[in-house]
């Protein structure tokens, strides 16, 4: 969805919160449980000019994760910053 939106010239930001941050863990091997390796598509985001990738610091701490555990470069944000940032966007979709 994010890639499609960017193709149509929209400025896209992605926010990863709660268990959503787990999608970004590197060295996943989803073929072990017959799942699609869609985590590999995160690497394509930058080629689609999607550089605003925000990850909730609190959600990372709760899961004992640091940025070095993630497969792509992200911007960490505090819990309170999320509300302000979402407010700057015209449309918000939750997955």
């Amino acid at each position, binding site marked *: 969805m994010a890639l499609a939106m960017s193709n149509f010239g929209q400025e896209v930001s992605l926010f990863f919160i709660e268990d959503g941050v*787990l999608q970004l863990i590197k060295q*996943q091997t*989803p*073929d*072990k*449980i017959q*799942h699609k390796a869609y985590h590999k598509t995160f690497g394509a985001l930058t080629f689609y000019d999607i550089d605003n990738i925000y990850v909730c610091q609190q959600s990372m701490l*709760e*899961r*004992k994760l640091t940025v070095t555990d993630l497969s792509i470069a992200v911007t960490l944000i505090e819990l309170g910053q999320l509300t302000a940032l979402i407010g700057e966007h015209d449309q918000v979709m939750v997955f």
Partner: protein
Amino acid sequence: MILHTVSTSPFTDQNLLQCLKRKQPTDKLMLIQDAVYAIMKADMTDTLLTHGPIYVLSEDLLARGLQIDNKLYIAISYPEFVTLTLECEQVISW
């Protein structure tokens, strides 16, 4: 002896905690699918210490890029999981 299997993330719902409240000390606990994320949750590991050892399906750990860093958790394969179900009289899926 009952084998309790939990399959959902403890960050998302209460299934694991609700299971712990109702399990006997002699019962066994196995984490599968998104429940394997419990190994990342510090306060959950503290709670599980009194219920150990906890079995975790290794395929589900590998698929999610996770590694066990506590002796409380024992990673087991699908065949070992099957053996565990045979050792227990009942299996309850939470």
